[in-house]
């Protein structure tokens, strides 16, 4: 909301300078977001009368005007839609300067017609942002009057943010009330007085409220014999500074009173309201109405309308209808001042995609007891500024008057919650009365206050305490560290375990990445993830972020690919985030499953202990890297009991993808991404990826390591080399070795692997070191040779391997 400081001064005396005022308001809860200086940015502009308007010979949208500046007539070409003979507008003659000296007016030819200056819109003068047409100066403005005489010095305007709980501050008086409270001043409110004449209003207007829950109060006044014309400059100027375009005196008055007191009003042309009958009702199915913005709207029964006997004439609290609009011909005004409840206004405004200054205020809530004041104030101004005669009385339908609320505030409670032990009872009462509350009772421990109906937000003790805190000053509160307490049930072990996993991934060379939780269907299609495995948003913001990710793998590959496109050869990435799976069964309470997941991706040769630049790794080398990362991580995290199994994920290179199993279930998968998928990112070299559900790594509870005695006797090592079919897994060989060795076998380590010409196709050569050690004494060479001999025999017989001498 825009608040001209000069307007505030009408209601409260302000001694503070602009910055002090802005700070004081910000720290009492009305945030001043910006401070503008608005006013004329031009020199040499005068009021001028347009005496004749003729079409431009060469342009449809331009007109040629004869303009009188008080001394002489000029020919001026004008493109504004509202220029009319007899009108009075700002005129910038040759030599005038606009836009703070940036734009000097010179003689010009527009489409072949000479123009000796320019007629100006409000924005060209610096008065507002409005470029809807020429600024219409009030009738009777003497041609030649300098604009400075009319508009004076630039004014300070605050850009104010009003939080949704403070609709009472959506007006000049509302803000002025805060200023008065903060600076200890008195609020000066105008007392509108009208002199009434003619037949009582009740004889020509009837009001029926059919939806009292949506409209608790409706008042109507009638003002006769009004003369439509521009409103006075002071009013135009205030409206423009507050960001509302001046239209004509009647419309301007309703807007002015709304800005003044926060209560939206509406003026109907009485002649266009059939029989002066006002009905406040829900719209009927299929009803239509053309609103002031010339749009025909289809109405529905959840919308509240103001109707006459025949038809809707306004969308209640949102916008008037074109059929009953104030026009130049209007002689009698039916002035509506009513209270509509927020819910109905909101649904009407939202359904029609409309928002107005009026709906904005009703949606937040207006004071039902402020209705009559606003009506009287507008009637007074119509009398004073439009020559209207106010019919006696007001039609006021208010079936259930709202009484001020009484709320109790305990002094000690306020002190404790705010943390100000020294705040005196009396100070608390003073702070509450400063914002218009009345102390109506109480005792030593608490006070009872009456809350005006304008303060819809003050319902409970804690609401009053908030007022006390902000008016006392949040910055007066002395900071106090809270005392430590221990909650024995509080444990964040899982979070700490995730932190540990992150640290281990970093230590293993991983850079942590973060991708969006939402992915595109296209990406998932590339990886062959079928639709039943996806949780899709019914209304995504963009197609790029339409599905909650079922796996971290697609974005991992995408991230590697995008880095490769930026000339990164090698990278190790990891991501820890949630993946989502559809609810397992279609029961009403089933929700999609969320699993915290770790993914790791590697491309290129990992940097390690060598300086030499290396070629791209082979697929089997890459498999070793990614599996090694997983093994080291699992070991560091204490997960020892895991196994591999075949995996059918559609994105693996054939034969190069495995499932990781632990505790009887699949906890993850690991492998090399299929070439057909990689090529979309031009990744020609193998990419290793694994993904594992974090709960399996986190475990249920911490297992503490146990000491084992360090061996006293030396070990004996024997090597065994063998040749076998390529298809025989290392895992099987190692199992057989263990099974057929005595308890003295301590370790089996693979130290050589060869596949190639020397041993023939379909074969591989493996060499293992077997380490023997006894806890009872030193093993002899003969012992070790014996063990080796017997395990060798079994390998030969059971697995058909060929032993080689080394």
């Amino acid at each position, binding site marked *: 909301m825009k608040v001209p400081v000069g307007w505030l001064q009408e209601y409260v005396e302000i001694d503070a300078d602009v910055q002090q005022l802005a700070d004081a308001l910000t720290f009492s809860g009305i945030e001043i977001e910006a401070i503008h200086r608005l006013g004329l940015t031009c020199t040499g502009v005068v009021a001028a009368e347009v005496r004749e308007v003729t079409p431009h010979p060469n342009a449809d949208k331009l007109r040629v005007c004869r303009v009188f500046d008080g001394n002489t007539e000029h020919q001026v070409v004008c493109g504004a839609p509202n220029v009319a003979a007899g009108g009075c507008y700002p005129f910038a003659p040759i030599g005038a300067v606009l836009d703070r000296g940036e734009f000097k007016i010179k003689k010009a030819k527009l489409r072949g017609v000479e123009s000796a200056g320019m007629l100006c819109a409000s924005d060209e003068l610096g008065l507002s942002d409005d470029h809807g047409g020429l600024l219409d100066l009030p009738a009777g403005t003497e041609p030649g009057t300098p604009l400075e005489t009319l508009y004076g010095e630039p004014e300070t305007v605050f850009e104010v943010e009003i939080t949704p709980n403070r609709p009472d501050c959506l007006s000049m008086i509302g803000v002025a009330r805060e200023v008065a409270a903060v600076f200890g001043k008195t609020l000066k409110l105008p007392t509108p007085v009208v002199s009434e004449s003619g037949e009582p209003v009740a004889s020509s207007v009837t009001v029926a409220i059919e939806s009292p829950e949506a409209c608790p109060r409706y008042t109507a006044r009638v003002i006769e014999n009004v003369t439509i014309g521009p409103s006075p400059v002071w009013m135009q100027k205030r409206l423009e500074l507050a960001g509302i375009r001046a239209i004509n005196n009647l419309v301007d008055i309703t807007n002015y009173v709304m800005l003044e007191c926060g209560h939206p009003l509406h003026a109907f042309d009485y002649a266009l309201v059939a029989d002066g009958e006002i009905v406040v009702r829900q719209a009927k199915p299929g009803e239509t109405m053309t609103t002031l913005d010339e749009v025909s709207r289809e109405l529905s029964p959840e919308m509240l309308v103001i109707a006459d006997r025949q038809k809707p004439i306004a969308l209640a609290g949102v916008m008037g209808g074109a059929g009953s609009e104030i026009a130049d011909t209007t002689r009698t005004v039916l002035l509506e001042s009513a209270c509509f409840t927020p819910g109905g206004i909101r649904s009407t405004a939202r359904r029609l995609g409309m928002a107005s200054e009026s709906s904005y205020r009703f949606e937040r809530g207006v004071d039902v007891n402020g209705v009559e004041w606003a009506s009287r104030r507008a009637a007074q101004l119509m009398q004073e500024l439009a020559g209207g005669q106010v019919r006696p009385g007001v039609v006021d339908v208010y079936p259930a008057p709202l009484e001020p609320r009484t709320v109790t505030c305990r002094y000690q409670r306020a002190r404790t919650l705010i943390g100000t032990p020294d705040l005196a009872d009396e100070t608390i009462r003073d702070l509450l009365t400063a914002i218009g509350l009345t102390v109506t009772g109480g005792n030593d421990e608490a006070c009872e206050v009456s809350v005006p109906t304008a303060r819809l937000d003050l319902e409970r003790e804690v609401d009053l305490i908030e007022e006390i805190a902000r008016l006392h000053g949040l910055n007066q509160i002395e900071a106090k560290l809270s005392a430590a307490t221990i909650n024995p049930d509080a444990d964040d072990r899982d979070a700490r375990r995730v932190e540990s996993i992150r640290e281990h991934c970093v230590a293993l060379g991983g850079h942590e990445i973060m991708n969006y939780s*939402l992915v595109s269907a296209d990406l998932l299609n590339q990886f062959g993830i079928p639709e039943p495995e996806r949780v899709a948003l019914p209304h995504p913001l963009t197609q790029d972020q339409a599905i909650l990710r079922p796996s971290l793998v697609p974005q991992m590959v995408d991230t590697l690919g995008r880095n490769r496109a930026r000339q990164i050869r090698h990278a190790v990435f990891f991501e820890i985030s949630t993946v989502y799976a559809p609810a397992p069964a279609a029961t009403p309470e089933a929700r999609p499953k969320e699993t915290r997941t770790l993914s790791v991706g590697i491309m290129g040769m990992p940097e390690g202990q060598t300086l030499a630049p290396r070629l791209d790794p082979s697929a089997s080398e890459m498999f070793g890297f990614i599996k090694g990362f997983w093994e080291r991580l699992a070991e560091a995290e204490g997960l020892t009991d895991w196994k591999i199994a075949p995996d059918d994920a559609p994105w693996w290179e054939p034969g190069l993808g495995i499932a990781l199993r632990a505790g009887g279930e699949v906890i993850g998968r690991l492998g090399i991404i299929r070439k057909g998928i990689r090529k979309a990112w031009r990744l020609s070299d193998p990419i290793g990826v694994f993904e594992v559900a974090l709960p399996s790594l986190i475990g249920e509870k911490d297992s503490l390591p146990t000491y084992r005695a360090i061996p006293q006797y030396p070990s004996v090592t024997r090597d065994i080399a063998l040749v076998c079919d390529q298809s025989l897994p290392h895992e099987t060989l190692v199992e057989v070795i263990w099974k057929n060795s005595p308890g003295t076998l301590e370790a089996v380590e693979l130290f050589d692997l060869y596949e190639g010409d020397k041993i023939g196709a379909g074969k591989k050569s493996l060499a293992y070191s077997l380490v023997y050690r006894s806890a009872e004494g030193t093993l002899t060479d003969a012992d070790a040779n014996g063990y080796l001999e017997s395990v060798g025999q079994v390998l030969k017989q059971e697995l058909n391997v060929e032993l080689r001498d080394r």
Partner: protein
Amino acid sequence: MKLEEIDTLTGTAASEAAVAVDLAGLEEVRIRYLGRNGRINDVMEALKAAPRETKKDFGQAANRFKQQIQAAIEERKAALESSAGPAGSMVDTSLPGAWRGGGKLHPITLLIQRATSIFRSMGFTVAEGPDLEDEFHNFDALNTPANHPSRDPSDTFYLDGGLLLRTHTSPVQIRYMETQQPPVRIIAPGRCYRRDTMDATHSANFHQIEGLYVDRDVSLANLKGDLEYFVRKLMNLEDVRIRMRPHFFPFTEPSVEVDYSCHVCQGKGCRVCKHSGWIEIGGAGMVDPNVFQACGYDPEQVTGYAFGMGVERMAMILFGIPDIRLLYENHVRFLQQF
């Protein structure tokens, strides 16, 4: 050989040993003087031929010859060996080390972990909740009116079946209080989602850190004190100040926005704080009694404060990152910087 000649020869040999360029050269020196056919033979002959009265002097000179040359050789040998590899070659110690390839944490994690460790030192523990929330935990229990704009499908992502992507980390407060009795001291870092079109400062995915402290007689003064302590530790600056501005959130009453004095200019005004001297760290306030009631706590028995801050925003301010999208681009040259 005269007595003086022996000493001169000792000096010459010692200096030759001292300048030997490598172990082979040093060995040549040893052979030349102390070897089977070396100059030591001349010295021993001179000793043998010396008359009785000078025999003792020659004996001492011969000892000096052996000992001093031997010592010079040992000393040079030690020097040469210490700078030589196994092959005896020189090592360029300015070469880069070979143990390379460590990773880095993402800046968002870095900020969350930094904040978490500070709050842990203040007795807070980490609590977490699901990304997919129901309206009760995300809105109703947090005292959000039924018609509040934040519930609008144009602000919040809804799923079929009434769930939504949580719009803040505040539902973790509710879930925690539903199952735990006071005192409560938790922080809840996590992902949140809003229907914001992506630009330099907005992302539909973002992170928040939520804090909640509930106990007897918790006050706004505690909120101020605790946040002041936190920001001091976060910024590693002793004289950071905190200020609170009144604000409105449905789940706190009173509600405030919290600023701290700019860590770059110490409040004097600079580009980082947009010349105001202050930087906003988030929203906060005293837990609304309705929130306590929704969780089964008695607001007459306990009070509490809650706060929430945007992690991306803080990371951008702290690390000088100009565009929020950089945080989700995952370029390795970006990730390496933190």
